[in-house]
């Protein structure tokens, strides 16, 4: 593999380069095999068998689980999950970018305060925060009280137990995961690049558009992955804030294992989810690499 990247390298050097990394790679490879390749392999193995009456696996070979994925019902749930997680990611980017930009521009002291404020919610249990949203959004909740108190609405608006509530819940939950990588990439930007643009006559907006924005795209892409991946597989928020009426792939997987006792189909859904997310990550990495390598060559 290495020789294709460096066709001019002498043969002896290639051999040494080929073997040298082995001791260093071994711990990582062993970790990957034990905790990634083997479990996923076992998962893939289970997808080709039948479910037992009480759960478990009956070892009769079948493609039924994969065929079942193509049923409109499941295709619909998968598409719906992609759309919901996509909306959440987009909103997180729109809200998170200005947040990260503002934090990067703060003095070091206030920057620390702002970063702690972003991370602080993570110190509270996930379920407690979810229940807090139920208290905020329900008909007698604070949001409705304020809306009515300020005279904006006459009667309480039904906000809880809707797909929109799921988006709000997921957005709240994962917004910090967008802000942090964006902040990291914005903070690393060499200020002299922006100064150069300004010195050459660019307006602040143009300097942002031509210098800051393109250089922060890798951070944004990382943030998008950080938000999209967990949003796609979350099942607690659709259940609690969505009232169980709109379900996502995560709920399907959970239900197959805990309610339907259909482990092979649950495994198939889980594997599909893993494959989808790996594809997303591979695409993100490829795009990100092109973006960072592109400008330097040109």
């Amino acid at each position, binding site marked *: 593999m290495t020789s294709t990247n460096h066709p001019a390298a002498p043969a002896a050097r290639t051999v040494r380069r080929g073997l040298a990394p082995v001791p260093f790679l071994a711990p990582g490879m062993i970790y990957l095999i034990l905790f990634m390749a083997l479990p996923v392999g076992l998962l893939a193995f289970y997808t080709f068998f039948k479910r037992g009456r009480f*759960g478990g696996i009956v070892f009769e070979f079948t493609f039924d689980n994969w065929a079942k994925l193509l049923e409109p019902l499941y295709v619909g749930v998968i598409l719906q999950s992609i759309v919901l997680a996509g909306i959440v990611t987009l909103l997180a980017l729109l809200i998170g970018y200005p947040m990260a930009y503002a934090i990067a521009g703060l003095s070091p002291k206030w920057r620390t305060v702002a970063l702690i404020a972003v991370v602080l919610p993570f110190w509270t249990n996930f379920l407690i925060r979810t229940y807090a949203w139920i208290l905020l959004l*329900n008909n*007698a909740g604070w949001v409705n009280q304020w809306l009515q108190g300020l005279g904006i609405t006459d009667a309480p608006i039904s906000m809880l*137990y809707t797909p929109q509530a799921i988006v709000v819940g997921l957005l709240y939950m994962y917004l910090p995961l967008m802000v942090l990588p964006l902040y990291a990439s914005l903070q690393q930007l060499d200020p002299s690049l922006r100064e150069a643009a300004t010195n050459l006559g660019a307006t602040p907006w143009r300097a942002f558009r031509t210098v800051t924005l393109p250089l922060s795209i890798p951070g944004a892409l990382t943030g998008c992955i950080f938000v999209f991946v967990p949003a796609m597989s979350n099942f607690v928020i659709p259940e609690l804030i969505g009232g169980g009426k709109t379900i996502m792939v995560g709920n399907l997987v959970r239900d197959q294992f805990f309610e339907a*006792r259909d482990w092979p189909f649950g495994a198939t859904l889980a594997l599909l989810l893993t494959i989808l997310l790996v594809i997303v990550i591979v695409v993100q990495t490829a795009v990100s690499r092109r973006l960072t390598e592109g400008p330097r060559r040109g």
Partner: protein
Amino acid sequence: MTTTRRIVAAAAGTIALAFAVSSCSSGGGDAVETLDPNADLSEQTLTVSIWADYSPEDLAEKFEAETGVKTTIVNHTTNEDIVAKLTASADSGIDVAFVSGQYAQALGEQGLLAELDKGLIPNEENLYPEALELAYDPGNVYSEPYAWGTTGLCYRPDLTGYDPTSWNDLLNPKPELVGKTTMLSTDRWLAEPALKAAGNSINTTDDDELAAAKEQLLKTKSTLLAYDDTTFYSKLVSGEAAMVQAWDGWCNYGIAEDPSIKFVVPEEGSDLWVDTMTVLESSKNKEAAMAFLNYILDPEVQTWVAENILYKVPNKAAMEALDPALIESYPTLGITVDELMEQEAIVDLGEDTLKYVDLNAEVLATN
């Protein structure tokens, strides 16, 4: 190369292990063991798996003080959860498991449960005679009932404006109640209102009847506030919901906070659910396990269930000893045995259980 071979070997090993585990899980014995009535219980230990908060906290200590059996209580969250544990390996390490009646039936048919030695459970005589003839296990061969009840409508008259009497009040709510009702979504209870409203059995396996139920449930879905199996009573208390499908005992938790809340068994009828105690065939401490079942069936012990979790118990002596004031506060505790017996017991449907699993998945996943 060697790495690849090692991976393959490791994978093959794991797969072989999976096969081994699954193939030895079906070893249930048919021969009825003879248990020793004079066994020294203090030499036995007991692991009991039960739903959390479903028994007195000091149950293990008290039982140990009385019998000398070193007892450990562990918890499971759902029937599916404990059944998965019991079927996953030949010996789960659990001696006594609490499961609902239809699951006791299924486990019994799989040979996983020990036949009860009635000589060691004299307290069975405290049960209502009806509690010995329940459809999922007539004669209580594999299980002794612990608590029972039914499912109905739990509602707030001040919000509904009327007293519902039918499952149709929930399935096709009045316009002013749209978005103010919830339904149960687990196991067999999701299909129940639609099946009963159409005059069908809750144990039906008829495809047309199930298809009709599914159509009705999909229509109802758009009128619901939410599917809720755990917090429906608090939605009533907060006023978010006006009427919810509820187990009678859980409706009591709402009544405890708002005494105006009422419960009704719809006129089309409902189910009779029973939570039971079973002894595992794999248990090596069967005398202690039988003694535990006997201890629970003592009226004083089982009264705890009615007084603390507000569920009815099938124990005649315990129910008759209940404080009348408690029944006045929680009318569902006053539902008589005759009224309960009019309801249809949920039984295990074997392979056809999967029809309900699919129905649930389809209703919940469809928008």
